[in-house]
């Protein structure tokens, strides 16, 4: 035992590691604010798609990273929400907010239904069933007359109120602000969740289901909770995406898109709280900023993913963490010398 421990009770940082959360949240706000510096519609467009992918990966990270359930259904849940939103706008006079809420609500209900069906299954089956579920959803929309079949539905501009609280004179700035606010709120909630009782329980279940259940955590309800919460985020992402493209169409939620979300998250660092931020930036850089042809983007991403998986499992986030620990150790070492 070291002398330090004898003088005072051992401090358990335990449930809370709030400091890093605050930094992450600050980083999120900062990154979101970046395009406002230039204020050009081009940058707003880039950043908006980046934010949308940050939302998708946030949703995937909640269910896969935190709770360990490899779900391929997140974009399907987004599709449920987005289509519900547009259909409600077109066919009822519930208004945009009501339509959005019912979209997100339905996505949560769908994820709950899927939990009941799928969560009893082990990993392999779960992944395949969720993928099948996501594709079934798009198949339904692609064949449904009311949902515009394969050509999808347009979001009529007239049904939306003018958003004008952020640089109203500049292009997409107001819509970008809406996306940024939604993302930051969802992100903050997810950080809070990770440190909460339920979040810890999710990590317990992910790390070792047997041990977790021997300590009184119900694996099934914990996983269901994670799935439903991630469904809420996916639902919000789906609606924002529909608003951004002013369109819902089955292609937006196809296998390619599902796998893209998986690749972005793994590249950024599966399970790391910083992953959605990194994934959003990654997407923006790779798919918007870099002057690469559309066909080769996915290929480049694929190569990076394979390299990362083989050479640096843990993704970018863990590399960053390793650097942080290194710096901290050096600093701690320096302090010790000063004490002497």
């Amino acid at each position, binding site marked *: 035992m070291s002398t330090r421990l004898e003088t005072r009770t051992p401090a358990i940082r335990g449930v809370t590691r709030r400091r890093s959360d605050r930094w992450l949240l600050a980083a999120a706000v900062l990154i979101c604010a970046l395009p406002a510096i230039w204020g050009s519609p081009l940058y707003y467009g880039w950043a908006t798609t980046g934010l949308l992918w940050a939302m998708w990966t946030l949703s995937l990270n909640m269910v896969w990273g935190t709770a360990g359930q490899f779900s391929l259904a997140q974009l399907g849940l987004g599709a449920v929400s987005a289509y519900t939103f547009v259909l409600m706008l077109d066919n009822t006079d519930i208004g945009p907010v009501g339509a959005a809420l019912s979209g997100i609500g339905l996505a949560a209900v769908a994820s709950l239904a899927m939990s009941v069906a799928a969560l009893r299954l082990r990993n392999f089956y779960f992944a395949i069933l969720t993928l099948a579920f996501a594709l079934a959803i798009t198949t*339904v929309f692609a064949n449904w007359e009311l949902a515009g079949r394969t050509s999808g539905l347009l979001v009529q501009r007239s049904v939306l109120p003018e958003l004008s609280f952020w640089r109203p004179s500049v292009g997409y700035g107001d819509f970008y602000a809406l996306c940024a606010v939604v993302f930051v709120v969802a992100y903050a909630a997810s950080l809070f969740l990770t440190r909460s009782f339920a979040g810890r329980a999710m990590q317990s279940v992910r790390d070792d289901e047997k041990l977790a259940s021997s300590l009184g955590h119900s694996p099934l309800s914990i996983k269901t909770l994670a799935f439903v919460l991630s469904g809420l985020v996916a639902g919000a992402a789906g609606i924002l995406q529909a608003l951004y493209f002013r369109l819902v169409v089955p292609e937006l939620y196809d296998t390619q898109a599902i*796998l893209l979300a998986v690749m972005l998250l793994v590249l950024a660092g599966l399970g790391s709280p910083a992953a959605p931020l990194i994934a959003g930036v990654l997407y923006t850089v790779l798919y918007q900023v870099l002057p690469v042809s559309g066909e080769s983007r996915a290929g*480049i991403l694929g190569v990076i993913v394979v390299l990362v998986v083989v050479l640096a499992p843990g993704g970018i986030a863990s590399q960053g963490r390793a650097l942080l620990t290194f710096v901290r150790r050096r600093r701690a070492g320096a302090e010790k010398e000063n004490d002497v």
Partner: protein
Amino acid sequence: MQAVASGLFLAALYGLAAFGLTIVYGVLDILNFAHGALLVLAAYLTAEFVLHDVPFWVSALLSIGLIAGVGALLELSVFRRVERDHTAGLVASIGVIAIVGSIILQVWGPEPYSLPRLATGSVEFFGANLLIDRLLIIGIAAVALTAAELYISRAGWGKVLRAVAADPDSAYLNGIRVRRVKTAAFTIGAALAAFAGILIGTASTFDASLGEQFVLKAFIIIILGGVGSTKGTIGGAIILGMAEAFGVAYLDIAVAQLVPLAVLAMVLLVRPQGLFGKVSQRV
């Protein structure tokens, strides 16, 4: 009768696509999403050779050989390094899909391709009009799958394969060179994927999305048949092929597209170990 014939035809293609995937999953324990990518790549390669006036069957053999080589290379360079990590293997295979998809789009573009049909014409049979090339495909697949199944269950090397699938550690202790067997299994799986891809290509046009359609169906079949069971895979392929063919024949086309998913959901809920699987089977 028409529905039965097209059911068998689908079953033949699905069976071939799923068989290689079962071997890879059983032996390497990797959910190889890239199986479909290799399958479609083989079809494109064959088409390319045929365009350069190489005889069809030579092109087919060349492509199968090339894809088998790609498979071996992938196993040695990527999947071997992520052996003990399911997630990493799966994600690596997703990366491979992206790479292959990107290559296909850049080399061959988004337009659909096709391969020369095996035969033309049709025969009347109990009032049903059957295409000869489809019958040929059913025959070829039946022969190939029977041979592969017999080989795995009877031949010495098939036993080695099963031993590694059942328990790599004790296989290793019994003097089996597990690593080599794994590479071989992946190579064989890739070759089977290529074989399936070429046959599919002769029967219909294809584009880059062919791979993902077939890989999902192959996964469904594996689950239907009970994971890791090659016999079950063949049974699962027949069930799925039939279900789909009858769905197309008797249901609305939109509903028919959901049939495979419905079958999957039903089986998973009622009998998660698969129709032919045993409860205690290793997964």
